[in-house]
């Protein structure tokens, strides 16, 4: 398999997951497009470093995480390759139901470390071991962080009387 074949296979297999990862964590189609394009550009340039099998997805999540962090640091340079994606992505952004706004508010009130592990567990549906690989810590540390994050979110939601309604719907 050539490098080109391998990249195409990785891109086609994991584009949806990386797109979702980016869309979940950014506020605009522009930013989503930037993260998707820069993540796969990194994969292309470092194709030999991309692990085989499904671990490739965890590797890509790790790259996307760094790209996202850099974007949040206010990088001024943006990748031109993302332009083509923006219109396509703009039409796809769903809206959080209004009756879950308090859940989102509580989630946003959590420290970034908590949000990150909760999101990886609940949105990307990663295990503790997989989260550890993405964020670069031990599996024990990942599970501990996840446990604490769940407890902190539960505590925040207990202060919200409407949370029980939302939980019944979930």
């Amino acid at each position: 398999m050539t490098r080109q074949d391998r990249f195409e296979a990785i891109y086609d297999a994991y584009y949806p997951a990386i797109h979702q990862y980016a869309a979940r964590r950014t506020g605009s189609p522009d930013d989503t497009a930037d993260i998707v394009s820069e993540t796969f550009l990194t994969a292309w340039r470092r194709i030999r470093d991309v692990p085989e099998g499904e671990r490739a997805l965890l590797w890509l999540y790790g790259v996307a995480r760094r790209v996202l962090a850099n974007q949040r640091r206010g990088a001024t340079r943006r990748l031109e390759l993302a332009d083509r994606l923006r219109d396509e992505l703009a039409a796809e952004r769903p809206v959080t139901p209004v009756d879950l706004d308090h859940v989102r508010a509580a989630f946003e009130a959590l420290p970034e470390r908590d949000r990150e592990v909760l999101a990886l567990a609940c949105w990307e549906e990663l295990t503790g071991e997989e989260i550890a690989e993405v964020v670069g810590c031990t599996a024990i540390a990942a599970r501990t962080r996840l446990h604490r994050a769940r407890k902190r979110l539960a505590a925040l939601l207990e202060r919200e009387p409407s949370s029980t309604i939302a939980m019944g719907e979930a």
Partner: protein
Amino acid sequence: MNDIDRLVKAIDRAPRPPAQGSAARELRAAIMETPQRRWKVPRRLPVLLSAVTAVAAAVAIGVGLPAYGPATEYANAAVSLARADDYVNVTITDPTADYREFEEAFRAVGLNVRVKVIPVAPDEVGQLIGPIVPEGFKGPGSVGVTRTPCQSAFCGKVWLPAGLKQLVVFGVGRAAEPGEPYAEDRPYDVMYGEEAVKGYTSRGKTVADVRAELRRRGLKAAYRLLWRDSDGAGFFDQIVSADQIKDDWIVDGTRFRSSDAVDLYVTPGPGTGPRPDPLKVRTPQWYDLTD
């Protein structure tokens, strides 16, 4: 999945995987057209060709000049430009030319540009560095650069939105003098680290070990503390002197600072002191506008 997990899942802003549309496929193709590693792009023939070209094109020419407004194409002894809607094709023929020749060309095609000729490592001589929008790019659109292998010092597309009014800064790499610090054209790669010295891995070794290896190779050591954000994702580096570094601290990576000196990017160890304000220890950048 417990109740908390179900709630978090319910606020997922992207619950469905996207269709892989034509734009996604175009992006894949565009990515695969880019060089895989910057240093694997075939080397150019910068100096010999540029001397010939400089004689042949000693007089600046404007091609396709409209009756009013900026040119769509422009060339002088240093550089050739062709302006499209959202990018400019750039060919640098003489990287040693005066910066005013580059600015003249960019301005001729309607761009508010400052060009700095900056000292770089030998493999970056003649390269276009940037573009940087010092005040922060406000969009819409994007800025960036795509290199294309060619016989000139640099060929490629510079992507800039049509009608961009913000000041843009470019660097053009010139060969640094012996011992002259290189301009930093990109941030340190904190994800994978960097290795300056061929055949030697500094990452994970102590400062004392790496310093000894550099000494063995006749290189001087310089130091930067690598301050990571609490989540490990962001970082900044701080230039420090040797007396601010302990021998047993751990090196994250190395990069040539000049032809005879190597920067050690060091993870702060015990007794480092408080994390400084990144704005107060900011390393001067090549694109800073001091004049």
